C-alpha cells in the first residue's frame, strides 16, 4: 500500500534585466548580435580592466525587490563567486553572497479555478549578478570544437530565490506565471524564455507520510527547465522518482546531500549531472574592485511610490469596480497592461462592466487568437466596441445578432451603426412585433394547445417562424408576447 506524500518545491528564477548596457561595463545587452561583437576589456576580463556598477540595473533590481515585498538593507556589497569555465572569462562571477540587495519578501498566488487556496510564497532573497557567456558546441566538420560567445557576459541578472513553499506542480506554475506577469508589468525584463531572459531552476523533494511520522527525501536541484511546462513535467517526474528511490533505498534527506539533475524533456526524465559540479567550493569573498552600495530609506520609498499598479492590485480593483468575476479579472490581467486599459475603457463607455468583460474575454480574445494578432493590431477601438456593448446592454439588439454585427465590424473595420445597416438590422417596432405574434398564435392552434397543456417548450417553434417573418425579431420578446397572448386565450 503506497504512502501519501507532499511535494515540496522552491524555485530559483534568473531574470535578465532590461538595461541598455551591461552590469559592469557599457557594452550593449542586445540579444542576437554576431558572436563577440558586444564586448570590451571589462566584460571579457582583460588584465587590468575594472568593473563599474550600472546604476540603472541596480534600480531595476530595487524596483522588483520592492514589488516582491522584500526588505531592502541599507548596505549591500558585491562578492566574487569563483569557478573555472570557458564562458566565464575572469574565473569568477560577480554576484552577491551574504549581504544581498534584498531579502524576506513574498508573492501572493491564487488560482481562479480554485484548485488551491490563495497563499503567499516566501521570497528568501533577490540579488544581482552578472551573466556568463555562451558555449557553442560546433560539431560540424566532426571536430567537436567549442566556441565561446561573450556577448551575453556581464548582462545584469536578478536571481529571485523562493522559499520551499509550493506544494504542487500547479502552484509552481502559477507562481512562475504570476512572477513573470509582475516582471512584465514592472517593465524590468522581457521575460523571453527562448532567448534566455528568464531561467528557472527547481529545488524539489517530497515529504512522505511514513508509519512513524514524516520522512523527507534528499533535495534535488533540477536544471535545464526551458519552459513553464517543462517545470511542471519535471516536478511531477521528480516526485514519482524520489518516491520510488525512497521505497527502494530508504534514503532520506539526512543521509544524502543535495544533488543536481538535468531535465531531458524529450525523454521525459531527469538525469544526474556531473559530480564535480555538485561539490564546488565557490570561495566567495567581497569583490575589492567594487564599492558597497548604500541605499537610503528615502530612495526605497521613492521607488516604492513610483511603482506601477501591480497585477494583484489590478485584479481586485477590476473585480470591485466593474463587478466582474475573479476568473475574468485573471484572464484580463494575464493579457497585460494594454489589454486592461482597453477593457476599462469599454467598461466605462458602455456602462456595463460585466458585459464588457464578456465581450473582451470571449469575442475579442477569440479574434486575437484566431488571427494571431496583438491587441495593437485589433481593428476596433475601445469606443467602437463599447458602443456595441451598450446596444446589447440596452436591449437594442439581441446577442446572436450582436455577434454577427461584431464579426462584420472586425472584418470590414466599421462601427456598429454601419455594420447594422449593412446587415439590415433594425429594432422591430413593438406594434409590428405584437401583430406578428398575434398572427402566429392564430395560425398555430396545436402549439397553443400544447402550451396550455403545460409544454412550454412548444413555443420554440413560433420563435423560428417569427424570425422568418422579420429577421430582427427579438426571440425573447417574441416568446414573452406569445406566452402572454396564449395565457389570455380561453
Amino acid at each position, binding site marked *: 500500500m503506497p504512502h501519501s506524500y507532499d511535494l515540496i518545491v522552491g524555485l530559483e528564477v534568473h531574470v535578465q534585466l532590461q538595461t541598455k548596457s551591461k552590469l559592469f561595463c557599457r557594452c550593449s545587452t542586445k540579444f542576437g548580435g554576431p558572436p563577440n561583437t558586444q564586448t570590451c576589456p571589462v566584460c571579457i576580463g582583460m*588584465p587590468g580592466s*575594472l568593473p563599474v556598477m550600472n546604476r540603472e540595473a541596480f534600480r531595476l533590481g530595487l524596483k522588483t525587490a520592492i514589488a516582491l515585498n522584500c526588505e531592502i538593507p541599507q548596505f549591500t556589497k558585491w562578492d566574487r563567486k*569563483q569557478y573555472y569555465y570557458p564562458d566565464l572569462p575572469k574565473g569568477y562571477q560577480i554576484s552577491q553572497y551574504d549581504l544581498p540587495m534584498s531579502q524576506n519578501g513574498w508573492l501572493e498566488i491564487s488560482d481562479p479555478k480554485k484548485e488551491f487556496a490563495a497563499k503567499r510564497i516566501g521570497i528568501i532573497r533577490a540579488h544581482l549578478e552578472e551573466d556568463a557567456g555562451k558555449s557553442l558546441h560546433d560539431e560540424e566538420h566532426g571536430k567537436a570544437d567549442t566556441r565561446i560567445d561573450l556577448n551575453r557576459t556581464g548582462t545584469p541578472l536578478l536571481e529571485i530565490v523562493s522559499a520551499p513553499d509550493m506544494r504542487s506542480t500547479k502552484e509552481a506554475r502559477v507562481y512562475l506565471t504570476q512572477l513573470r506577469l509582475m516582471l512584465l508589468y514592472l517593465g524590468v525584463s522581457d521575460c523571453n524564455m527562448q532567448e534566455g531572459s528568464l531561467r528557472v531552476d527547481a529545488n524539489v523533494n517530497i515529504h512522505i507520510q511514513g508509519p512513524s511520522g514524516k520522512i523527507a527525501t534528499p533535495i534535488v536541484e533540477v536544471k535545464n527547465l526551458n519552459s513553464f511546462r517543462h517545470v511542471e513535467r519535471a516536478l511531477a517526474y521528480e516526485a514519482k522518482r524520489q518516491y520510488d528511490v525512497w521505497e527502494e533505498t530508504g534514503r532520506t534527506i539526512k543521509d544524502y546531500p543535495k544533488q543536481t539533475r538535468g531535465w531531458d524533456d524529450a525523454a521525459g526524465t531527469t538525469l544526474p549531472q556531473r559530480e564535480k559540479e555538485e561539490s564546488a567550493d565557490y570561495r566567495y569573498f567581497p569583490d575589492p574592485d567594487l564599492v558597497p552600495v548604500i541605499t537610503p530609506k528615502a530612495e526605497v520609498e521613492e521607488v516604492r511610490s513610483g511603482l506601477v499598479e501591480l497585477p494583484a492590485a489590478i485584479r481586485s480593483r477590476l473585480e470591485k469596480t466593474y463587478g466582474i468575476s475573479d476568473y475574468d479579472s485573471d484572464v484580463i490581467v494575464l493579457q497585460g497592461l494594454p489589454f486592461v486599459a482597453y477593457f476599462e475603457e469599454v467598461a466605462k463607455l458602455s456602462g456595463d462592466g460585466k458585459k464588457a468583460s464578456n465581450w473582451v474575454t470571449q469575442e475579442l480574445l477569440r479574434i486575437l487568437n484566431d488571427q494571431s494578432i496583438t491587441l495593437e493590431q485589433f481593428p476596433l477601438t475601445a469606443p467602437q466596441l463599447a458602443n456595441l456593448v451598450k446596444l446589447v446592454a440596452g436591449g437594442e439588439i439581441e446577442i446572436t445578432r450582436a455577434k454577427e454585427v461584431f464579426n462584420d465590424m472586425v472584418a470590414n473595420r466599421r462601427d456598429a451603426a454601419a455594420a447594422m445597416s449593412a446587415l439590415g438590422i433594425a429594432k422591430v417596432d413593438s406594434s409590428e412585433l405584437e401583430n406578428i405574434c398575434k398572427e402566429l398564435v392564430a395560425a398555430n392552434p396545436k402549439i397553443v394547445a400544447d402550451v396550455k397543456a403545460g409544454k412550454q417548450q412548444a413555443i420554440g417553434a413560433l420563435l423560428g417562424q417569427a424570425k422568418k417573418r422579420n429577421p430582427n425579431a427579438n426571440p425573447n420578446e417574441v416568446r414573452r408576447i406569445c406566452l402572454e397572448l396564449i395565457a389570455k386565450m380561453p
Partner: protein
Amino acid sequence: MLARSATDLLRDLSVRKLSSVELTQAYLDQIKLYDGQVKAFLHVDPAAALARAKEIDDRRAAGKPMGKLGGLPVAIKDVICTKGQKTTCGSKMLENFVPPYDATVVKRLKEADAVLIGKTNMDEFAMGGSTENSAFFKTTNPWDKSRVPGGSSGGAAACLAASMAPLSIGTDTGGSIRQPAAFCGVTGLKPTYGRVSRYGLVAFASSLDQIGPMAATAEDAALLLEVLAGHDPLDSTSANIPTPEYTKSLSQPFQGLKLGLVKEHFGPGLDPEVEAAVREAVKVYQSLGATVKDISLPHSKYGIATYYIIAPSEASSNLARYDGVHYGYRTDEKQMLAELAAERKSLEAKQDEKGLKNLDTALIRLYRKTRAEGFGPEVKRRIMLGTYALSAGYADKYYLQALKVRRLIRSDYDAAFQEVDFIIGPTAPNPPFKIGEKSGDPLAMYLEDLYTVTANLAGIAGISIPCGLTSGKTTGSPLPIGLQIQARPFDEDRLLRAAAMFQRGTDWHTKRPNL
C-alpha cells in the same frame, strides 16, 4: 645632463634650451650603454620614443599648448597596460600579451606629453621584493650589481639610479615602490589607496595595489603625481576628490612639525647601519624645527601575517583568468591531448577504473598544464596560499579574521595621527641583499615588507627618500638607505612637502652610483 632632476630638465625643455629628442636620445644612449648590466628594462622602442619626442618638440616649436611633462621621458613598470605594446607583468603567462587599451595613468601621461621610454622589469605579477621573480631576467642594483634592486618595482627604481630615465612609474602592494626606492637611492611615493586610478593596472591584490611616482627627488615625484592622480570613473575605488597642485605647495615651510617614531620599527632584525642613518635623519628634522615623539602601532606586529592572507587571497582570484582560454600563454594543445590519450590507454590496459574516472577532461588538463607552465614558483605559492585561505571552512579563520586585524591596524594609524603629523622610520630592515641570498627562503623575503605593508593595509600614503649610504665595511660598496615617511590618507601634499624639506637640508638624493 642625465644627473639633473626632471624639474630642472623640464625648465630647459620649456624654454627650448633642450629638445625632447636630445633628451630622449641621451637616455636611450645610457640604456644602450648600461642596461646590459642593470637589466632594468623589458622593452624599449627607441624609434617610437624618438618619434613621440619629435612630435612634442614640433608642437612646442609651433607654440601649441604643452602638457605638464612637456617632453620628459617616463619609464613604466610592465604591469601597467599600454595599448599596442607588450605588457608582460614579468610573467611567461603574459609574455606576448598586447593590451588593446591604455591604462588610465598611461592615458594621463600621454595627455601630459610624456615620452614613454620603455617598460621596466619586475617580480612576476608584482609578487616579490627583489625582482628575482621575473620570468625573463633578474635586474641588478646599479650600486652593486651582485645585489638586488629590491622589488617588485626593481626595474623602475634601478633605471632611475642608473640615470636611464628621469621619471618612473611603479606600483606598491606591500612596499613595492618604497623598498626598491630605498635600495636604489631614489624617491618613491605610494599614494593613498584611491588617489591614483588602478584602471589598466594588472591586479595583484586589488584592495592594496596602488600606482605611484618614482623619481630622483620629492619635487619630481610631486610633478609626476600631479599628472597621475585624480578621480577616474573607470575605477570605482578611485577617490572622487580634487587633486592638489603638489608642485605649488612643495616649498612651503612647516611650523611646529610633529613626527612620530614607531617603537615597533626599531626592534630586532633592524640593521645597525640602517638604524643609525634613520636616527641621523630624525636629527636633521629636529634641526629644522620638528619635534619627535615615540608612538606605538600595537597591531603592526600582525602586519605581515595579515598581509600574507589578504594579498594572496585576492591574488588567487585575480589570477584565475590566466587559464589559457582567452588570452596569454596556452600549453601546447597537441602535446597535451597526446599525453592525455596515452594516460587513458595505459589506465585502460591496467583496467584501472578509479584512475580512469579521475582522469582529467581535456579542458581541466588545459587549465592545469597552462597554469603549471605559465606561472613561476612564487606566484604559484601565493595562489595556493590564497586559495586555501578562501576555502569553505577556512575563510572565517583566515580571510575574515585578517580583515578584522586590518581594521585594527588602520585604527592604530588613526590614533597615531591624532598625535603626530607624520610617522618616520626605516623603509626596509636592511640594505640591498645579494642576488640569490633570500630566494630560497620565502619567509625571510616576506619580512622585507615589515615596515611597509601596514601602509597598504591601512590605505594610507607613504614615501621613501634616500637618507644615507652604508659605510661599505660590511657590504663591500656603499649602498643606499631609505627613510620612510607615512602620512594620513590623502595627505600627499604635506607628505611631499616634508620630504622636500629634508632634501633641501641634505644631499643624499643627489648621490648616484658609479656605473
